[in-house]
């Protein structure tokens, strides 16, 4: 029997990761709940005036989405490292580049995609103008995929450490900043009635760059972590 090709193997890994995620529904729900809780804190801290909230809404929604993504990125490779699956993955004849993309794809589908899907509800909570909601969802769809890819690099580098949670934040938060800048700028532009396209195009370009480069860094990080 010949080993499956890279794409076929990717689909197998994606199905495996999604099945694992579905078996632990709490882990899918946690980032969404975190998102809801933090968004609910802002009216308490900033005051409930609709105008104040609307002014802060683009930034607040984006920062919260970023933090809830950060919360989960630590777990991308952790359980596979602990039970030895990661060793087997590294020995697979298929290119590791594609395999880690499958892991990140599954992570995005269970966090970023869902965050983007529920974000209109929280946008309404913060009184974000209706014309900016499409821009918010679009920027979050592209942006969270980027965040997952960048978070994966940190996860791959820290997976061998007992308590990598804090370190991963320090490692990848600086890399999150450009995503936050263009993501929240897209929403702000939509609020002001300016074209959103250029911001989304820049996010898309960053996503292309990350898809091409982040798996290389993740693969190298995993090899180092397994070797240590």
């Amino acid at each position, binding site marked *: *029997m010949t080993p499956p090709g890279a794409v076929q193997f990717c689909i197998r890994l994606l199905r495996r990761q999604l099945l*694992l995620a579905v078996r632990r529904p709490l882990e899918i729900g946690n980032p969404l709940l975190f998102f809801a809780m933090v968004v609910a804190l802002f009216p308490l801290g900033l005051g409930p005036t609709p105008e104040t909230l609307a002014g802060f809404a683009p930034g607040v929604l984006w920062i919260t989405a970023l933090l809830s993504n950060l919360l989960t990125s630590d777990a991308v490779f952790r359980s596979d490292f*602990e039970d030895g699956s990661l*060793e*087997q993955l590294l020995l*697979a*004849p298929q290119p590791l580049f594609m395999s880690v993309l499958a892991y990140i794809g599954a992570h995005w589908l269970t966090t970023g995609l869902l965050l983007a899907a529920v974000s209109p509800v929280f946008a309404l909570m913060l009184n974000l103008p209706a014309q900016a909601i499409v821009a918010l969802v679009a920027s979050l769809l592209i942006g969270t995929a980027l965040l997952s890819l960048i978070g994966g690099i940190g996860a791959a580098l820290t997976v061998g450490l007992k308590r990598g949670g804090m370190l991963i934040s320090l490692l990848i938060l600086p890399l999150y900043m450009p995503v936050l800048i263009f993501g929240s700028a897209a929403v702000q532009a939509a609020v002001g009635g300016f074209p959103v396209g250029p911001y989304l195009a820049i996010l898309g370009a960053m996503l292309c760059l990350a898809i091409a480069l982040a798996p290389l860094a993740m693969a190298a990080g995993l*090899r180092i972590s397994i*070797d240590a």
Partner: protein
Amino acid sequence: MPTRDSGVPVLAARSLCLERGGRELFRELSFTICAGQLWQIEGANGAGKTSLLRILCGLSRYGFTGQVERFAPLLYLGHQSALKALLTPRENLAFHVSGEGCYGDEQIESALARVGLYGYEDVASHTLSAGQHRRVNLARLLLSDATLWLLDEPFTAIDKAGVDELQALLASHVAGGGAVVMTSHQALDVSCDVRYLNLGTGLAA
């Protein structure tokens, strides 16, 4: 199992040296493993058996000197079972991350039945015992057609009958032109020749 030619080298190690914590575990270790051979790596605890296996399979890339050349697909079973507690044994084998072929349901069922897990195909793996976890892993040996098996303490947590079956399986793999390198503290009772690699004393025939 496909028939393979005996005597064809499947793995060659040249002048391997490994140092850990300022202590030299082995040096100038050179050997060639050919199809049809069963190798047992011996040595006291901490002699570097697992480290050597990890170097041979390619998981360790740094920290040692020497070269390893692999000429055939290999299957490595380490200390950890690499099973997902949330998946059933069937799913664990069907979605295995080691990148081997896609197995049919019947293949997986017959492999699980042969390792004594008939009836456990669809229960969550976290309800299985440590020995049963090891047995699911052994089903991978039956499914795989890798030529070279690298097994790290394959008898751990396996009951007596299971050890006998596994030894028979190793012998039949070797007879079919495969090669096995394993670490174990147990003396092997197999029908084929065993080559010993004692990390304390070097090569022994």
